[in-house]
């Protein structure tokens, strides 16, 4: 159990790096609770690219109905944690 948690910390770092590359926002500015639209200026097409990149990297499918709930990094972690546990 403890080991799994450590791995997820690593995944969080990977996601941050991935999102930083897509949005061209420096990693330090990507705070877990920062709102993608209001605080970071991420538009819907960048969000689409983020979802596609995450799906490809972790070989998962994020259902369309989950996408409006992606407001910040934390919500991405939650979706991914649920998916990867299965």
């Amino acid at each position: 159990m403890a080991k799994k948690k450590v791995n997820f910390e690593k995944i969080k770092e990977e996601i941050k790096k991935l999102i930083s590359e897509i949005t061209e926002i420096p990693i330090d500015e990507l705070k877990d609770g920062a709102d993608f639209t209001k605080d970071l200026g991420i538009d819907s097409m960048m969000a689409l690219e983020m979802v596609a990149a995450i799906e490809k990297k972790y070989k998962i499918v994020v259902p369309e109905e989950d996408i409006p709930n992606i407001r910040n990094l934390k919500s991405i972690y939650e979706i991914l944690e649920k998916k990867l546990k299965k």
Partner: protein
Amino acid sequence: MQTIWNIDKIQEVLPQRPPFLFVDKVVEIDTVKGKVVCIKNVTINDYFFKGHFPRNPVMPGVIMIEALAQASIILFAVLKPEVASKHPDYLFGKVEAKFHRIVKPGDVLFLEVEKKKILSGGGIVSGRALVKDEIAVSSQITFGVKPKKSRL
């Protein structure tokens, strides 16, 4: 080559009109894979050859990208008919492209687009334009789909 959508059906879906309509017919629709194949017959009558270039007609790369984008709208309409039937605006988000071969009058351009991700509000597709079996352009297109705002 079987025609699945003719020009009338295409114009029900695409907002573009001649001389800026670059899909002549749809020859393949695969809803399982999320793929469509369209054809653009390139002819000396195409308006852009007048200036691109005098006495050396070469189809502009940006027009090939536009043709792939129009094929992408058709793919979107096949996969999300309930959104497309409301005639939304389609917007480019990002284009990555590589050009491999020039295209001249007389060439038949096959426009193959396949979904990577399609949502109601936009999509990412990979597209290829081919002449015979030779790739002319390979690209990835990200686009947005927005409900039409009422215009004054």
